[in-house]
């Protein structure tokens, strides 16, 4: 199972966990499995068919937009990072 690291703003949707595991041979499959365990994440990451445009998904530090998007292959040793924009500065 691949490791999924959640940005802080997403953690409340995953029982406060910073890191979870999910099964899937592609990113799409892995995210579907993730939503099974944590349904609230779906709305934040993928409300429609496509990945939301305000979230960045990285597999092993590479942006999936420049890999194969939802069709990117994910291996059990891979780390998936979910990172939405943060605004806080003050």
């Amino acid at each position, binding site marked *: 199972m691949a490791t999924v690291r959640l940005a802080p703003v997403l953690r409340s949707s995953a029982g406060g966990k910073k890191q979870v595991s999910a099964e899937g041979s592609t990113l799409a499959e892995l995210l579907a499995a993730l939503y099974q365990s944590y349904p609230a994440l779906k709305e934040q990451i993928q409300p429609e068919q496509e990945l939301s445009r305000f979230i*960045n998904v990285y597999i092993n530090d590479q942006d999936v937009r420049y890999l194969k998007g939802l069709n990117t292959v994910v291996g059990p040793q891979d780390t998936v990072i979910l990172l939405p924009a943060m*605004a*806080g500065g*003050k």
Partner: protein
Amino acid sequence: MGDTSREIMRRARQQVPEWTPSQVHAALAQGREDLVLVDVREKHEWNEGYLPGALHVPRGFLELQIEEKVPGKSQQIVLYCAGGVRSLMAGATLQQMGYENVISMAGGFGQWKGAGYNVVQPRIMGEAQIRRYSRHLLIPEVGEAGQLKLLDARVLLIGAGGLGSPAAFYLAAAGVGTLGIIDADVVDESNLQRQILHTTERIGQYKAESARATIKALNPDVNVITYIERLDETNVRRIVAEYDVIIDGTDNFPTRYLLNDTALMGDKPVIHGSVFRFEGQVTVFKPYAGPCYRCLYPEPPPPALAPTCAEAGVLGVLPGIIGLLQATETIKLLLGIGEPLVARLLTYDALAGEFNELRLFRDPKCPACGENGHPEDLPTYAEFCALPGRS
């Protein structure tokens, strides 16, 4: 018995070829870029003026510093001093060190100047400045030339809050000559847990004014320009145009998009930082050299996914770390040293004690900086995420 100075000179003259000032002038006039001019005089002599483009390596430090300043041993070097004697002996020393193509300018700076050729009058730091910035002057990558660059630099801070406070405080200490601070808020008690430019006494005062007071007390060299207003479409171009580097420490997405687009149009680098509870992010958006903010986040998240510090809280020391990373990146850009965080997002997790780095890519279809981008004509989502500004 050792050699007399006359004997040392005689030998040096046999070994080291000499050019007259007019020969050196002719070589430089041809735009010879492979020729390095080295001034071996003392500091006080250099301060009186030097040849255009010359490096300064006082003879007393010649052996210690020349390999750093002129690494190539086959490089053609023209040495000069005041009258042509010290440069001749310096030439013999360089030959001993293995430099193959060393020339001494006969007659030295005196004859050069007497012939009416150009000299550069260096800017000189005052005694107080030399003491204040002495730890910078000791670093070769900064040195006097770098410190003068910092003193000439103009940096704009968007916000004098959690990120802007530490960044402005340290940039002022570093001697960045002009700091612009835009912030329309007043100091609130809840700011003081992290916004270290402000004080308990100054609760209720404008943050920009409070920031000026703290900065002036630390370093009177720094010119502080305050803008007690919000950055918006009406003022952004005018203000951004006045600065070399912009530090983005805002708390809302509309300002970040607006700043991004304006910075692209004005070709100004933006040092981006953000914080949330225990985590922070830093990157450098250098126009067209790496991605821009819209490449990274084409659209803002809905308010529920992007709470401000006021809603979510932040560990007080965290913006200190992120703001200082921003200040560090600013100084690197101003001095042109190191590897800036362009196309790299550095994230810091305070609880884990971990830094991570993500690679960022420029989106060729980016509506702002892509091939067909139009940064002047994009929505900033001001209505969409109309969050309360204060945080």
